[in-house]
């Protein structure tokens, strides 16, 4: 029963949505009914699937690139403590540039392919991932390091047998945080210059006041973030068996 609670909440919200339209007579271009949105899914499956696939690929690639770089940089910082003072300021500068300000430049540089959207997705994920993994590694217990020193472990062995497994919980939590951010990054890229993807679909449908399609695209957008989040959660439970 407890597991079904989220389903009941969603169904109640849909019912509330439906009744609000009926009672207050809200026009379709402002708030389409649940059935109108469902109708979009039935009549335009191909359009929605193509747009979903494009945005998913952009978000996923940006997410993977950002987290891979964050993990590598964080592990490098952990081994060469001085490098933190050079790397983090650069990361902070990147973070302070608003993504909407840099996205047009990325489009100018990389054209209208998926590359600039992947880049915006990666940029938006990079800093939170880096900070999360670095602060995780910095919380490393001193006695673990002493233990490895006692046994004269090489740098490679220390990274492999200590830093990587120790960082995994922090990497997974950064993956969870950035899973939704990557979708935002991909959408921002699509809003500013694209001819495909859910962001493009939302913008073009909004201009033509085709609100049911906007709603369908929004639902699909959130489903990307959700599916990434739960895929990461599943992987975490399989890999970090010692935590579960």
């Amino acid at each position: 029963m407890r597991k079904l609670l989220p389903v009941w909440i969603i169904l109640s919200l849909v019912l509330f949505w439906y009744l609000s339209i009926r009672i207050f007579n809200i026009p379709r271009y402002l708030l389409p009914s649940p059935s109108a949105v469902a109708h979009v899914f039935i009549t335009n499956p191909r359009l929605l699937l193509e747009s979903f696939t494009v945005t998913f690929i952009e978000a996923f690639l940006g997410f993977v690139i950002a987290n891979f770089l964050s993990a590598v940089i964080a592990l490098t910082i952990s081994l060469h403590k001085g490098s933190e003072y050079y790397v983090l300021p650069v990361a902070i500068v990147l973070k302070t540039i608003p993504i909407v300000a840099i996205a047009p430049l990325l489009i100018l540089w990389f054209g209208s392919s998926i590359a600039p959207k992947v880049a915006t997705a990666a940029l938006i994920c990079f800093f939170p991932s880096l900070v999360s993994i670095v602060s995780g590694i910095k919380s490393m217990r001193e006695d673990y390091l002493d233990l490895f020193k006692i046994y004269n472990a090489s740098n490679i062995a220390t990274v492999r047998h200590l830093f990587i497994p120790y960082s995994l919980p922090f990497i997974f939590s950064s993956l969870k945080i950035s899973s939704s951010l990557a979708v935002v990054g991909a959408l921002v890229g699509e809003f500013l210059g694209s001819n495909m993807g859910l962001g493009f679909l939302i913008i073009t449908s909004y201009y033509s006041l085709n609100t049911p399609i906007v709603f369908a695209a929004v639902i699909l957008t959130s489903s990307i973030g959700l599916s990434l989040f739960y895929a990461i959660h599943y992987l975490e439970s399989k890999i970090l068996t010692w935590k579960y």
Partner: protein
Amino acid sequence: MSNFIEIVSLQKSFDDRTVLDDLNLKIKEGKLMSIVGPYGSGKTTFLKILAGLTEGYKGSVTIAGLEPRKLREKGMVGYCFQKPNLLPWLDVEKNLLLPALLRKTAPTIDVNKLLKLAKLTSIKKSKINELSGGTRQMVSILRSLSLSPKVLLLDEPFSSIDEISREKLQEDLLAIHRKTVKTTILITHSISEAVFLSDEIAIFSQKPTSIKKLMPIKLDRARADVRNTEAFNKYVTIVRKQLSA
């Protein structure tokens, strides 16, 4: 019997703060020595110097004729930390094999034999999270023995363990020491633990620390109830007096 550990005029400072000053100590091979002293008297620093983890000291420290760092590099030091620091992502067996893995050598004691020392063979494949604090600490001690070190250094291994489990672990440690006959240095805040386990107790002074008193302990440890004997209580009283003086 020759001196296995020789410490002559050891001095260690951090910035302008002298922690250890003119510390002299000799320990015979195969003996178990406890170090007791006030909080912050540099006991852990002392142990880390012996382990080759802390350097930059003055004076001379030799263990089996070698400098601590050399001894550590040769994998001849076993160290058990204050908190059990088993790696939670490895099971008990893999934790015990970790020193051999890091040193790229085969373990000199097999895991089953090692676990048998503390009657823990049943937990070989257990996850670390499934173990009690006492068992984790005992596994940590066993891990420090896995490469058959020349010297075993124990930094308050039972400090966070309840009284009943602690007595059991002390008995297990004593049994392990009898079987392995490793030269062992134990840091403890428990006077009764020091008296129960040691061949000799070194009482540290306040900072800057030197040896206040060395006290050989001559107890019949074959007796299970040695803790209730008059001789035991006498030793406890003497050490307590020395510490509070």
